């Protein structure tokens, strides 16, 4: 890299950000670069929506790498609650401390209470960690999997980046972390949350870009192979499959082919490695049955 850390405010235009992301082997188009640029400059969360495997999570990783900031990830799931997202007290250590104090003959409840609700007994979960760490990139992954009550809670945190802990006081981020929220759109996310964010819909990349991504990410890949795989991927995406392959899958697929020493996509090898691109038995059967892998 440049030998110095890049701050969010140093990036002067979306074009510059494209260049910086490229150094992290992430090829962004103009729309995504503008989205990320504005997120950095305006201090607003970036809400990325799109099919699985179009590079939503990868963008957060690339941003963290180029800012030389830790990536703090909050993977959402049904039933996620504050204790897992925000903070929790280290119960076992608190008890140990109480026992030790008891053995030492300390009986002053007020003093004991002050001691056990000390910062060192607090376990920071992703949201608190992101507020405390500067700079940092917070990735709230697959928000559509969490319950809608969690959205309201997240909105509260994302609005002012302050977290109040009753026993300890309020933690406030001097400069807000860079936040990337992703959704696979398995359900509609509340409008109030989107309103806080910059909304970007990520498409599968166009053919040329996909070829470029394959070549950029996989050093051993020949141009012929990249072209053929990208063309096959494009066909697969229009074949009405249960789960059309995203860029993540084409990358995996190409890597599998490279591992087998392929320099171009012949139908036999393609069929043998198809499991890297397609994850449903029905899809594999449909593709092999329809001869969709024929010479590109």
């Amino acid at each position, binding site marked *: 890299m440049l030998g110095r850390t890049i701050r969010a405010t140093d990036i002067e235009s979306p074009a510059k950000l494209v260049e910086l992301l490229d150094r992290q082997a992430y090829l962004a188009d103009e729309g995504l670069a503008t989205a990320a640029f504005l997120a950095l400059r305006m201090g607003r969360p970036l809400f990325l929506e799109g099919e699985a495997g179009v590079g939503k999570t990868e963008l957060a990783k690339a941003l963290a790498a180029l800012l030389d900031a830790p990536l703090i990830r909050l993977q959402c799931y049904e039933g996620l609650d504050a204790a897992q997202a925000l903070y929790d007290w280290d119960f076992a250590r608190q008890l140990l401390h109480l026992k030790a104090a008891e053995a030492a003959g300390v009986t002053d409840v007020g003093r004991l209470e002050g001691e056990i609700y000390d910062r060192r007994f607090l376990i920071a979960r992703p949201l608190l960690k992101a507020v405390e760490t500067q700079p940092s990139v917070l990735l709230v992954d697959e928000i559509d999997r969490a319950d809608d009550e969690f959205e309201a809670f997240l909105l509260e945190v994302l609005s002012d980046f302050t977290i109040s802990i009753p026993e300890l006081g309020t933690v406030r981020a001097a400069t807000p972390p860079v936040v990337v929220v992703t959704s696979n759109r398995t359900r509609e996310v*509340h409008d109030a949350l989107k309103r806080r964010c910059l909304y970007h819909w990520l498409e599968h990349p166009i053919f040329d870009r996909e070829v470029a991504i394959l070549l950029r990410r996989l050093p051993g890949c020949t141009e012929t192979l990249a072209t053929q795989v990208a063309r096959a991927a494009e066909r697969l995406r229009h074949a009405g499959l249960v789960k059309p392959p995203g860029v993540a899958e084409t990358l995996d697929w190409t890597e599998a082919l490279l591992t087998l020493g392929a320099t171009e996509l012949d139908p036999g090898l393609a069929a043998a490695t198809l499991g890297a691109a397609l994850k449903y038995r029905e899809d594999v059967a449909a593709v092999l049955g329809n001869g969709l892998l024929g010479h590109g």
Partner: protein
Amino acid sequence: MDELVATMTGFARTLRAAGVGADHERTQNLLKALDHLDVTDRDEVYWAGRLTLCATPADLPRYDRCFAAYFGGMKARQVRTATTSVTRHLAAREGAGEPGGDDGTAAPATASSIEVLRHRDVARMTDAERDEVHRMLAMLRGGRPLRRSRRFESAHRGVLDRRRTIREALRKGDVARLRRRRHTTRPRGVVLFVDISGSMAPYAETLLRFAHALVRSEPRTTRVFSVGTRLTPVTAELRHRDPGTALNEVSKAVPDWSGGTRLGEELREFLTRHHARGAIVVIASDGWERGDPELLGTQMARLSRQAYRVIWVNPHKGYADYQPLTGGMRAALPYVDDLVAGHSLAAYEELSERLAHA
């Protein structure tokens, strides 16, 4: 700079007319975004607007059209959909009052006659028979499936309540006993849409009585809307204890009895102004869509993504030869979890049962 504000406010207005929720706050975000970008660069303005004013993939094609029209030098013409507002007041109930064909006796109900009534189509009953069915409906008390809430309560079994345990240890000087807690539960919400258009007229009153029973048994978590040519919330009206009074109130509140059905538009309005997150959605309609079936399909897709379960009640489903052939029904069907009958008392009892165990 003021010129820029005026231009962008006008653009946002154009978007709103096209159905994109580009409100004041979002417009302010756009102006803030433009502070960081080159406002003379058409592409940067395009992206700034798209990133701040849009909220769903469905907004994107509309945005593109509006952007091209507005910044191409011409404002997009406001598209006004012609709405035929038919406001025949309660005329629907006349059609429902015709005596039935086969068995027109108005004898007082006995246990066995109720058993017979239970499976008869309410559209083909005499007034007296229908009254009897309505009395039975009023007694319907379904339960609700529970969903876990985020709150906790202390309990004998469950996960360790560390906070309470440690608090107690502080007070008593030692851990006397472990405190436990578990999530509380809440009944799942139900959103019921009752089609009161002309083709549903024979069933409208019975459906509303069913809605009344639902609201009465779960007042806090039931929401009812009438659909026809307009979406009208009628939950408040249905809260009256007496079904007759409640129905009277509903008939005053609803402006579009016995018109056509524009369910697609109405669902869009519902999804804009209300929500069905985590709820069981019940749509009672025969699917005679007068609007665009494609619009209905897209709105149903949105609805089904929000809802926990979508149940469609179609009175005609009670007949063995029924096939979902109407345009609206066909468009909606891929997003419906259960398609059930809704023509007889037995069908409503079954629906109530289904709601309790969804």
